[in-house]
């Protein structure tokens, strides 16, 4: 004879099995969606300084400052939440590929996902591990995002569209750089 506890256990176990099936259907309904879209990027003001990097070697390294424009509509990309990040990619004598994340943003579901930023400051320092920024004429900014799903994969998506710019050939020496 099944006792009350056994009946309760059977119902709970069956409910959890059904929940697992529903979650799988949710995953299956989103796994083939295309999460790429266009993003327009532009840089407004770009300077480079040569200052001691106390967080690393204390030697003088190149530190880039820039402000950027960003215009994109991500409102159709939502599964659950979005995590955006802006990456600078460039090549130096030391390294074939350097990638520095300059800025990021979390957009929760329901928040405004039509982004139109003008003259934004970066969120993180643009340090090079040497003197690779001064006069570097091919720095590429790309926007990428993580789709945070209800269930399923956690893809890293690169936006269509990027922006390349160059750093000035001279260091800026003023102590305060006013970017805006």
């Amino acid at each position: 004879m099944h006792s009350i506890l056994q009946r309760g256990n059977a119902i709970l176990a069956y409910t959890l099995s059904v929940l697992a099936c529903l979650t799988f259907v949710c995953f299956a309904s989103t796994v083939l969606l295309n999460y790429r879209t266009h993003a327009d990027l532009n840089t407004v003001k770009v300077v480079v300084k040569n200052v001691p990097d106390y967080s690393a070697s204390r030697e003088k390294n190149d530190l880039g400052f820039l402000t950027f424009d960003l215009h994109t509509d991500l409102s159709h990309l939502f599964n659950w939440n979005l995590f955006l990040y802006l990456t600078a990619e460039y090549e130096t004598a030391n390294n074939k590929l350097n990638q520095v994340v300059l800025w990021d943003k979390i957009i929760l579901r329901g928040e405004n996902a039509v982004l139109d930023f003008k003259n934004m400051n970066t969120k993180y320092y643009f340090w090079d591990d040497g003197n690779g920024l001064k006069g570097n004429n091919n720095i590429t900014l790309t926007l990428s995002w993580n789709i945070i799903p209800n269930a399923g994969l956690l893809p890293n998506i690169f936006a269509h569209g990027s922006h390349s710019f160059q750093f000035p050939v001279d260091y800026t020496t003023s102590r305060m750089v006013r970017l805006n």
Partner: protein
Amino acid sequence: MDFINKIPTHMDFEGQARAEKLSRVIITLFGFVGLVWGYIIQQFSQTVYILGAGFVLAALLTIPPWPLYRKKPLNWQKAKGETESVSTSSDSTKKNKKKN
């Protein structure tokens, strides 16, 4: 404690079968409806809540031993007289000893 022990908790066999079948139908139905509704409004959380409601309903309907599940109790053999029962019980203990 006597009062608690006197609360009936058993179902008969057919009642158990009905209870299990009913609970599965309810939970499956709520899960399916929840999935369709959640897909329509694109909110998986609603699917989970509706499934949870199905679980609560199924628990209320099929965990307590409602009279519905006790309609066909088994007809147990009547208890035998005192002397007879003593002899049979001693017989069975002897048999058990031999087996061991």
